[in-house]
């Protein structure tokens, strides 16, 4: 009991010190929501390894850090250092956050577009909090997840994106979350609320970028709702520093005929856990999950995905690939659930892993839970090494071993990036991967 309370203490103190600031000008429902969420977190504590969802990931390293709430953004920031986080391939509508707080000076706003509302959550809460109340209905949260509770308790900033019916956005939207060095390692809890109306189309890019010597916790939570026939391509690139802790949850709900395409690139961070869930709530909804994780020295990356087929004729297609090197540990857990009446469901899932080092470990668990009969579901998982034959071929053509290996690893990774439909985003993703692989 003592150990638990010790782990929670920094958050309890942080909550106490921050609450007066947060409650100022906040409506009563929001204050109550935060308090209730914190009580839930304090009550549950951090998840233990005995919980099936945390079987391969211990929260002990995170507990030991005792993160305090992040500070207000510093006055100056090295523009060169943050440049790689920006999508420069095409004009984008960008919001920038430093340690979880909106930094409007760094935004690159495109022209105002009718039918699109994009704002920082902090600002939206100040101006018209009541309009957002519907987003925080109990059903919209993982009620038993302590990290979601923590995110809600410290709800302060993030982004709100609303796109009207029939709106087709040409310009990508980008959210950049920068983690910078602070006097004391700090925790921030950005919340992202996205709502696409019927037949709306959009592209969203989220970048998590850690600057040198940053050692913070980013505990993000995104809620995404796709109306009938809406389409969203969602690229998330996580390139935090080698000392950063990163927890990220995305929860999507999809209506009839909607299409959600996610690309998750976990390329940085010291201790990373991401959960991506979608609920295909109406017929013909489709989800595509692509993921790439790359780990090396001392890092731990855990990817959880879950797709709920809740209606007939829904489809899902998932491809996650991992490159695991150095003294690192990667985890993949992909779950596909087909509910009782979700007939004609078509679900495919593949997880491939390249295990490159003696000190590395990979734990993978593709799960299927099926309660309907007229379905086509499959999953596959593999753990292996680079193909000796292919290596030999390249070397016989005069390539040195390093280059040959690099080429093959690159090809392995690019099978995931090739699935990014928007050319500019694909170029951006390649640039991010190259930067990380080049540095190793």
């Amino acid at each position: 009991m003592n150990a638990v309370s010790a782990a929670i203490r920094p958050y309890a103190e942080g909550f106490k010190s921050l609450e007066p600031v947060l409650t100022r000008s906040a409506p009563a429902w929001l204050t109550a929501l935060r308090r209730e969420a914190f009580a839930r977190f304090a009550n549950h504590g951090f998840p233990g390894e005995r919980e099936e969802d945390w079987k391969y990931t211990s929260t002990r390293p995170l507990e030991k850090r005792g993160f305090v709430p992040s500070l207000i953004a510093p006055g100056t920031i090295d523009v060169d250092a943050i440049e790689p986080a920006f999508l420069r391939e095409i004009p984008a509508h960008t919001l920038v956050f430093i340690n979880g707080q909106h930094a409007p000076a760094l935004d690159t706003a495109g022209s105002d577009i009718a039918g699109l509302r994009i704002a920082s959550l902090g600002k939206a809460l100040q101006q018209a909090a009541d309009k957002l109340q519907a987003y925080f209905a109990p059903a919209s949260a993982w009620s038993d997840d302590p990290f979601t509770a923590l995110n809600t308790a410290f709800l302060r900033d993030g982004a709100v994106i609303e796109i009207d019916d029939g709106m087709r956005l040409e310009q990508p939207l980008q959210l950049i979350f920068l983690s910078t060095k602070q006097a004391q390692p700090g925790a921030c809890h950005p919340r992202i609320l996205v709502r696409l109306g019927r037949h709306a189309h959009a592209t969203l890019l989220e970048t998590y970028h850690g600057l040198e010597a940053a050692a913070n916790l980013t505990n993000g939570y995104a809620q995404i709702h796709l109306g009938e026939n809406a389409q969203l391509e969602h690229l998330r690139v996580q390139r935090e520093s080698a000392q950063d802790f990163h927890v990220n949850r995305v929860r999507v709900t999809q209506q009839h005929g909607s299409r959600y395409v996610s690309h998750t690139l976990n390329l940085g961070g010291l201790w990373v856990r991401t959960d991506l869930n979608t609920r295909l709530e109406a017929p013909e909804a489709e989800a595509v999950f692509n993921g790439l994780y790359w780990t090396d020295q001392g890092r731990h990356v855990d990817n959880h995905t879950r797709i709920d087929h809740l209606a007939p004729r829904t489809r899902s297609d998932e491809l996650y690939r991992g490159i695991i090197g150095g003294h690192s540990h990667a985890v993949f857990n992909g779950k596909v659930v087909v509910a009782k009446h979700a007939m004609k469901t078509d679900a495919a899932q593949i997880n491939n892993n390249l295990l490159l080092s003696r000190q590395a470990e990979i734990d993978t668990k593709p799960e299927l839970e099926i309660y309907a009969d007229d379905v086509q579901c499959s999953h596959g998982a593999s753990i292996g090494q680079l193909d000796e034959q292919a290596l030999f071929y390249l070397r016989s053509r005069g390539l040195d071993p390093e280059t040959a290996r690099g080429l093959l690893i690159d090809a392995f990774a690019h099978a995931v990036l090739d699935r990014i439909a928007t050319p500019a985003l694909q170029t951006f993703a390649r640039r991010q991967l190259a930067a990380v692989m080049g540095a190793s």
Partner: protein
Amino acid sequence: MNEAAPAVTQASDVENLVRGEYRHGFVTDIEADTVAPGLNEDVIRLISAKKYEPQFMLEWRLKAFRHWLTLQEPHWAHVRHAPIDYQSISYYSAPKSKQNAPRSLDEVDPKLLETYEKLGVPLHERAKLAGVAVDAVFDSVSVATTFRKKLAEAGIIFCAFSEAVKSYPELVEKYLGSVVPYSDNFFATLNSAVFTDGSFVFVPKGVRCPLELSTYFRINAANTGQFERTLIIAEEDAHVSYLEGCTAPMRDENQLHAAVVELIALEGAQIKYSTVQNWYPGDANGVGGIYNFVTKRGECRGADSRISWTQVETGSAITWKYPSVLLRGDNSIGEFYSVAVANHYQQADTGTKMIHIGRNTRSTIVSKGISAGHGQNSYRGLVKVLAKAENARNYTQCDSLLMSDRCGAHTFPYMEVKNPTAKVEHEATTSKISDDQLFYCRSRGVATEDAVNMIVSGFCKDVFKELPMEFAVEAQRLLAVTLEGAVG
């Protein structure tokens, strides 16, 4: 068939066929010597005393019992059942006729023989025609053992476990609990405390067992949980194939079955363990049926050894069973072939664990799950490659066939790899019997049910071909009976 309304015809066929009842349901009237329900140290001392066990055995049982008291029943399996009252079970039941033990088949209680007749496995016929030695366990005590002489000539020990404890205590003491320790898990610990009988096989160095060894287990006396303990040891370069088959009479109360099977393969040894499990699954409404919570584990202790599990699971209300292999010896091989059927309200949570410890170890897993009615079928498997297991190789295939819109098929494979030379592959598919295949068969004049049988047989072929011949025939027949009319 009425061409105008094929769908309707099919539906009523299904109604009739689904009601196919359990054929092996009957109770043989035999006086049984049963201990009053309840579990405490006195009961364990009584079991041990009744079996004239040496001191080490009693101590081992008591150690297990004391440990069991500290354990909680596990609930992680994907099954649901009413709580089990361990104090309401009688832990010992021996047919009375054991008092003047039969020395040959002629002396065996004719009622017992009749039971086997009803099951379609007449002992003498089987023994003669199929060349199989049978050590039949009838409610916990062996009543007939055949071909002992022939086996004894080869130096093979094949006897009831209780006999082995008395006649070969040094072997039992050396190997018992060396693969499944008494503290292994809730049910294995319970078994260690209260097991009544089972089979013991010892194949000495260099001997190839000339026969397929076979045992039939039956649960008969009401309210008697069965706690078999099987121990098979194959010394260096020994080969043995062991068959286990089960049926049980129809009954309304749930019966607990918590067996433990331990296999030990020394250098170059091969053990093949095949099971056809057809215990009473409960009726069409899910009332009654056996709870089958079994711990089966083999250890490839020596280099170049091989252990192969093949199982056809069509019975039991709940099956909770993961035949596993510890691949400790270099170049050792583990195999798991399984067909599991869950019809009506049956629940099966089964799979395997392959633990790669030695170098160049290989494992193959082929699991076929069939769900029908309200059945819930889960595959749960672990492939673990330890850091020192160079060049480990695993291939896993687990397919599920769904035959009703109320059943479920689930797959929970765990893969944990710590060595970069390992190759681990897993693939799984889930689908229903394809309408195209059915239509093709029917257009060629094959009746729907025959077509379904054909498709299911094809689906299970990879597993059936691993079974010894006579078992393969029985398994196929069993499957057809179990799934009668399950497809609509």
